[in-house]
C-alpha cells in the first residue's frame, strides 16, 4: 500500500492551518508505516487532544481520539488486551509532556511496545498559543506575554531518564531522516519515543516573529543537526536498547503461572 492510501480521503483536506508542520509529521509516519508490512486492521492509532491529536481521525486504521493527556494509558490497555496490534500514539508536546507527562514516563519505564510520536511545536496550538513545557525559556506565548520563565524539558533526556529503550528526535525540515527514525521506532520491540520538532506558524511562529512556515523550516535547518554539531539541537536516535518488552514479560508470567511455577 502507498502511504497516502492510509488516509481517510473523505476526511481530507485536514483541519490544520496552512504550513502547519503536523501534516508533515503525519506524512513521514505514514511513509515509514507503508514500508513495513502491517495490515491496516492490525494498526491502532491513539491520540489525545490537541491539533496534533486530531491526526488519528485522518488515518484509516483503528483510531481512537481520547482525552487530553491520556492517550498512552488508553493505548496501554489496548496493547495489553491485544498485543498483536501495532499500537501507535500520536500526541502533542502539551498532550504528552504537560498533562500527560506521568503516563509517558511510566510507559517508558515499563517498556511496553508503543510507538509514541510527539508533535512538538513548542506551544498549545489547539487552545490558541499558550506556552507548553517544551516552549523555550523566554519565548512568547499568550500566557507568557513577557516571556516564558519556565525552563523546558529536554524530552529526549526525560524519556531516557525514565528508562525508555528507544528515544529519537527528528524534525519536519528533515522528512527523510524523520521517516527513517520513525521507522526504527516502529521496528523497536519495546517502548519508543520519537520527538518531532514541528512548526506552528499560526501561534508559536506569529507570537515569536519567526515568519512563515517556510522561514520556520529554515530556522529548523539552521538550528538542528543530525551529526551532533555543537550548539545545535541534536537530531537522531539517542537510545536504542534491547530489553524485555512488557507484553512479553506478562505473557511469560501467564505461562509460568499456568505451569504452576509462580512463586507463591
Amino acid at each position, binding site marked *: 500500500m502507498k502511504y497516502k492510501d492510509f488516509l481517510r480521503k473523505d476526511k481530507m483536506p485536514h483541519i490544520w492551518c496552512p504550513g502547519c508542520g503536523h501534516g508533515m509529521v503525519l506524512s513521514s509516519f505514514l511513509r515509514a508505516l507503508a514500508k513495513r508490512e502491517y495490515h*491496516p486492521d492490525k494498526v491502532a492509532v491513539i491520540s489525545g487532544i490537541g491539533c496534533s491529536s486530531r491526526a488519528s481521525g485522518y488515518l484509516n486504521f*483503528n483510531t481512537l481520539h481520547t482525552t487530553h493527556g491520556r492517550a*498512552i494509558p488508553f493505548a496501554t490497555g489496548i496493547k495489553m*488486551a491485544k498485543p498483536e496490534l501495532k499500537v501507535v500514539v500520536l500526541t502533542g508536546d502539551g498532550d504528552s509532556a504537560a498533562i500527560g507527562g506521568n*503516563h509517558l514516563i511510566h510507559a517508558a519505564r515499563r517498556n511496553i511496545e508503543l510507538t509514541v510520536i510527539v508533535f512538538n511545536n513548542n506551544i498549545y496550538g489547539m487552545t490558541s498559543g499558550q506556552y507548553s513545557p517544551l516552549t523555550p525559556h523566554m519565548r512568547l506565548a499568550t500566557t507568557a506575554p513577557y516571556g516564558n520563565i519556565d525552563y523546558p524539558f529536554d524530552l529526549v533526556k526525560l524519556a531516557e531518564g525514565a528508562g525508555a529503550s528507544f528515544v529519537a528526535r527528528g524534525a519536519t525540515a528533515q522528512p527523510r531522516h524523520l521517516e527513517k527514525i520513525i521507522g526504527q521506532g516502529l521496528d523497536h520491540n519495546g517502548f519508543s519515543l520519537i520527538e518531532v520538532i514541528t512548526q506552528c506558524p499560526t501561534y508559536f511562529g506569529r507570537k515569536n516573529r519567526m515568519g512563515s512556515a517556510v522561514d520556520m523550516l529554515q530556522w529548523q535547518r539552521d538550528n538542528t543537526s543530525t551529526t551532533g554539531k555543537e550548539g545545535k539541537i541534536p537530531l537522531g536516535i539517542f537510545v536504542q536498547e534491547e530489553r524485555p518488552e512488557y507484553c512479553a514479560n506478562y505473557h511469560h508470567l501467564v505461562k509460568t503461572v499456568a505451569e504452576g511455577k509462580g512463586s507463591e
Partner: protein
Amino acid sequence: MSKRLIQGNEACVEGALAAGARFFAGYPITPSTEIAELMAEKLPALGGVFMQMEDEIASIAAIIGASIAGTKAMTATSGPGFSLMQENLGFAAMTEVPIVVVNVTRGGPSTGTPTKPSQGDFMQARWGCHGDHPIIVLAPSSVQEVYNLTITAFNMSEKYMVPVVLLYDEVVGHLREGVELKGTAEIINRDFPLVPPENYRPYATGDGLIPKLAPFGSGYRYHMSGLSHDETGFPTGNPATIENLVVRLQDKIEKNRQDIIKYKAIDVEDAEVIFLAYGSPLRSALQVQKQARARGEKVGLIQLLTLWPFPHELLTETFARNNADFIIPELSLGQLADEASKSVPRDKITRVNRNDGALITPAQLEQALKGVR
C-alpha cells in the same frame, strides 16, 4: 451448590471473572485494595491481564482501552480515586464503551476516614463528571449481592454499552458471608456488527438505541472520539446531530428503566411505614422491619439495588397508594433522602443519618420507627 465464605471484595472479583472480565487495571486504595490484589492473583491463571497503573486516571483509561479491544474490563477504587476517574468515566459514557467501575466507599470528604464505611458518594456516582451523561449505578448490600450484581454490572454494561458503577460501602466490602458462586449466571456480551466493514457506521443504531461497536483489530476500522460525533464516529458540529447524540445517550438508559431498575420490596403493600435503604444501612433496616412485622406493625422495606437511574416511579406509586411514612437511613448527610424527596413529600421522610464511621444500628432504626408511629 455449597456456599463459600468470602469477603465482599472477593465476591466482586469472583463475579467479575464469572461475567467474563479478563482485564483489570487499578491503583490501590483502601477499602477496595483486596479487589486488585485478588485480581493480580487470579487473572494470570486465566490468561487475563492485571495491571497496576501509575494512578486512577491511567487505570480507567487502560480499562476503556482494553474494552475497546474487546475485553471485558474493570477497575476498583474508592472516593479519592473515583474523583480522579470522572473525566474518563465521561469519555466511556460518550464513546459508549462498556466498563465496570467499583467504588468501595469510605468516609469523606477528602481523605476523610479511609477505613470506615460511608455512603457519601451517592450523588457523585451519578453526577461526578461534567456534561449530561448516561450511567448506571448498582448497589449490593450483602456478599451474595456483590457477586450477583457484579455480574449484572457487566451484563448491563455490555447490553447498554455504558459504564456501570458498582457502589458499596466498606462494611459490605469487608464482611464475610456464605456465597453461592453459581456458574449458571446468564452472561451478556455486546453485540457484534452485522454489516460488513465497508458499510459499518459504529454509532448507527438504526431503530434501537444501542450501537454495535466492533473490537479494535476485528477488521472493522473506525474512529472513536470524545468529541460530539455523528453515526460514523467522526466529530461533528452539526447541531441536530449533536442534539440527537446527547438525547440518545440519555434515552438508551431512560427508555430501559424497567429493565435496569432493580429493587426488592418487602411487605410494602399495606405498609404504613417504609424503610428505604441500600448498602449496610439496609441490613439494619431489614432486621428492624422483620421484627416490626413480627410485632404486627405495618412496616415495609424497599431495598434499592439500582441507585441510578433512580426509581422515582416506584416511590411515587408507592406513596400514592400507601401514603406511608418513609424512613431513610444513610451513612451520609441525606443524599438519598434528598433524591427521594422528588417523589415523596419531604415531611413524609424521616432521615436517619450517620457520618461518624460507625454503622446505623437496628436500635437507631427502632427509635426512628417509634418516632414515626
